[in-house]
């Protein structure tokens, strides 16, 4: 039974199409039920993130790509012709490779972003709840999660912030540890000050104090951020309390000189102070960064860090792809041994049936034999069958080419005239194979 991955992502579809093809809107359960209602195959998983919509299906037919595309079109009410330009379809091992790359964050808009792993997990859990999963999807998604985790822990693909605001948060964590309960002082009440304040408070940095030359402006911002405003005259005390200082005034000249900061550091007994100077021109005299336990970063420094991180991430890509290839190979060999298994089992059953029939036919002639001789005969015939089957079975299992396996199995089916009935029977008896849902 072939495995398909059909979908669209930021790589193939513009945002309008992605928006209208969002499975999460009506809930994954609804989508899964609608997919199951199509009766395309026994196992199906729907993956939905803000940048992708995908269906993973273990199909009954080799030609399931088209009906899955039709499902996309019908379910999202998008013109089939419009949609087909944006849909991609991967089959078999390539479908697995695609999912593994997705789970590893290699196919994401921001390479290495960590959310995708959770989304892949959620997609599988939702399908499991709808009883839409089976042996293949189980193995596929677990291998995908393993790949994602390995890439995250063994490579630096997800390392380092790739936006200025995250770089600032990362730095704050490295310098000050846990951000909760730290005092933030924002100097200035403009748009940049507000953006930074919002970003910091979403990361749990609280309480926020805002100091501005115009107190009313500071009060407005303080209300929005749930912090407090302080008059310019209280700057000294506010600086002594702060752990993180964000300066974003529109002043044309330096607001805080090195001597001023040095004075403040004495007041705060040299407790570490992280200064983020996002003002242009700069608010803090650059030399202040040389003071003991003062960590001064301006906007260019932060951008420099982001650039370095992006370069580092891209050099880690090759290692991540190697892990994906390794996991794909592992999955492929499992998939292949699984595909060949019904044929092997059917073949064995056929041989065994012949052996039993021949013994049956000879039963009258053998009746004169002693029980020992009969047992020996039984053993010898069984051994002949085993030996005849050993070499071809091993050869089959060692074939590494996916399409070759199919043609070998096909040849065996034809040569020995193995019926589908026999294979289904064999499949039913094989542990770990797909159990059809009623």
């Amino acid at each position, binding site marked *: 039974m072939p495995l398909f991955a059909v979908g669209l992502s930021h790589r193939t579809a513009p945002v309008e199409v992605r928006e209208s093809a969002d499975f999460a809107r009506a809930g994954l359960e609804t989508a899964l039920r609608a997919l199951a209602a199509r009766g395309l195959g026994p196992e199906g998983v729907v993956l939905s993130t803000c940048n992708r919509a995908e269906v993973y299906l273990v199909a009954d037919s080799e030609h399931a790509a088209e009906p899955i595309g039709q499902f996309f079109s019908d379910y999202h009410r998008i013109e089939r012709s419009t949609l087909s330009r944006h849909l991609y379809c991967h089959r078999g091992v390539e479908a697995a490779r695609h999912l593994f790359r997705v789970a590893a964050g290699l196919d994401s808009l921001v390479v290495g972003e960590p959310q995708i792993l959770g989304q892949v997990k959620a997609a599988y859990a939702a399908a499991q709840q709808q009883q839409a999963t089976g042996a293949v999807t189980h193995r596929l998604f677990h291998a995908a999660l393993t790949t994602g985790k390995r890439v995250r*822990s*063994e490579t*630096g693909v997800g*390392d*380092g912030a790739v936006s200025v605001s995250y770089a600032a948060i990362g*730095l704050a*964590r*490295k*310098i*000050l*540890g*846990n951000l909760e309960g730290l005092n933030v002082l924002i100097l200035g009440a403009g748009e940049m000050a507000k953006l930074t304040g919002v970003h910091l408070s979403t990361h749990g940095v609280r309480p926020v104090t805002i100091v501005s030359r115009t107190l009313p402006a500071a009060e407005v911002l303080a209300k929005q951020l749930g912090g407090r405003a302080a008059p310019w005259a209280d700057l000294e005390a506010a600086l002594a309390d702060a752990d993180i200082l964000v300066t974003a005034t529109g002043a044309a000249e330096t607001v805080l000189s090195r001597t001023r900061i040095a004075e403040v550091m004495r007041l*705060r*007994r*040299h*407790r*570490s102070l992280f200064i983020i100077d996002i003002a242009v021109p700069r608010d803090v005299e650059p030399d202040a*960064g040389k003071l*003991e*336990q003062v*960590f001064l*970063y301006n906007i260019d*420094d932060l951008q*420099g*860090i982001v650039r*370095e*991180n992006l370069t580092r991430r891209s050099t880690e890509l090759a290692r991540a792809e190697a892990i994906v290839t390794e996991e794909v190979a592992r999955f492929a060999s499992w998939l292949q041994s699984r595909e060949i298994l019904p044929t092997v089992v059917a073949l064995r059953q056929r041989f065994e049936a012949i052996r039993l029939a021949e013994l049956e036919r000879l039963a009258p002639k053998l009746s004169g034999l002693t029980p020992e001789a009969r047992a020996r005969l039984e053993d010898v015939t069984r051994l002949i069958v085993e030996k005849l089957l050993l070499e071809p079975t091993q050869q089959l299992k060692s074939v590494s080419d996916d399409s070759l396996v199919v043609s070998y199995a096909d040849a065996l089916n034809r040569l020995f005239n193995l019926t589908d009935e026999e294979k289904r029977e064999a499949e039913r008896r094989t542990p770990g194979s797909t159990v059809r849902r009623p």
Partner: protein
Amino acid sequence: MHLVPLVLYAAAAAAYMTHFAWRDPRTGRLATSILGGGVLAHTFLIGMQTMQAGHAPLVGTTAAISAFVWVFGLSYLYVELTTEERAMGVFVAVLLVALYIIPALDPTVTPRPPVLQSPLFTIHIVSVLFAYASFALAFVLGVTYVLLFNELKAKHLGFFYSRLPSLQVLDVMNARVVTIGWLLLTVGLSTGAIWASQLDGSLDPRAQAMSLGDPKIFVAVLSWGVYSFALLARRTIGWSGRRAAWLSAAAFVLVLLNFVPVGYFLTRSHNF
């Protein structure tokens, strides 16, 4: 048998290095297990020596170094397992290997002279050893603090930035282990002093050399003074962060000097 811990410590150091470089969690767990194995083998060795000699092998500088390595390894494992922070392991394991070379080369157990037959001796040496192990941890924490600090100041976030815990955590842990070490050293030095005063009538030349004028005792008291200053300065004049890190790193160099060169060549009071 005495080489088994050395081999395991070296293997642990290699595993910690690999883990530090590539950050593969499996290698990290492997490193912890190997170090655990090393400490275990070392425990057996010390146990065997105790059985053979009839007393714990704590007599003489070589034995003390061996015991120190054991205590340090054990303390580090405790810290690692309670904080789940493995980044320090590479520094600790390298230090363990370097120090363990000495006892590995000379595994003979010195018989205990009558002058050391006192429970105070055991309290003295055990608390001093644990104090030194704490200071060794503080040393590692101090060195890593400075490494990370320099990266943050230089604004090129790289190797250590992505591998070490935050400055704040390193600083807090440093303060904690220095405090513990200082308390233990205080206990160790006072029991030593009490015990030495009880030996006043002894004819053993070493007992007669027990005074502040002896290099080993002098440097020990000096390092106690340095650590006292470190704790005091942290509380009063804000010597936390990099200054505290440097101080704890430098003070441990003093401890090591006292342990190895002074212990072997200069002391007249502690040359058992």
